[in-house]
């Protein structure tokens, strides 16, 4: 049972375009949604996160759009750069169990120069 689903599995965009990474979840108790960026050989780095009380969170070129009713969220990467090429994991946790993060299977982003 996959509680957090991501699509697409792989995404290729040109430099300067906006990359859109999608995520959906099943558990209504999830209220915190971090996105992690992982480069090959490295651990996942916290990129941006959102609480379920918000519908949008911006941090520079990265924006999360959150739809609680549909249990969907998306990460938009504006003005994509080749250095953004990485695997992006959508994750979710509930309440005080922040450590029990449920990860999606990731979206591998390629940004072509």
């Amino acid at each position, binding site marked *: 049972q996959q509680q957090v689903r991501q699509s697409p599995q792989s995404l290729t965009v040109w430099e300067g375009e906006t990359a859109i990474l999608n995520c959906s979840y099943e558990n209504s108790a999830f209220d915190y949604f971090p996105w992690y960026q992982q480069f090959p050989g490295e*651990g996942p780095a*916290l990129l941006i*996160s959102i609480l379920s009380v918000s519908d949008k969170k911006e941090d520079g070129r990265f924006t999360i759009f959150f739809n609680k009713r549909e249990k969907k969220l998306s990460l938009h990467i504006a003005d994509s750069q080749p250095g953004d090429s990485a695997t992006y994991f959508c994750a979710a*946790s509930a*309440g*005080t169990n*922040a*450590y029990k*993060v449920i*990860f999606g299977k990731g979206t591998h982003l390629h940004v072509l120069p």
Partner: protein
Amino acid sequence: GALVYQYPRRTICKSGTSMRMECQAVGFQATSVAWYRQSPQKTFELIALSTVNSAIKYEQNFTQEKFPISHPNLSFSSMTVLNAYLEDRGLYLCGAIQGLSNERLFFGHGTKLSVL
């Protein structure tokens, strides 16, 4: 900013031997440390949660006998993989939870374990 250091970054051990990995939080107090394993297929599994002065909680399929953890203070934790076999391969991640906040889980670079 909050930093989590893990070492070694990579290690290779012979089948049936053990290896110890360490995790250090820098710049913040890690009241709790969650150990994860990322498989070669990139999926994540929670191994255990360690909170200072509390019992360590292991997830199903993971035991103290196989993955003993030490968490002596707010900046340091270690975990050992005993009798490592092929199925134990992967990237072992230490996730440190900052203070009393339940929102932020910071990962180290991970310790990549290869088993021959």
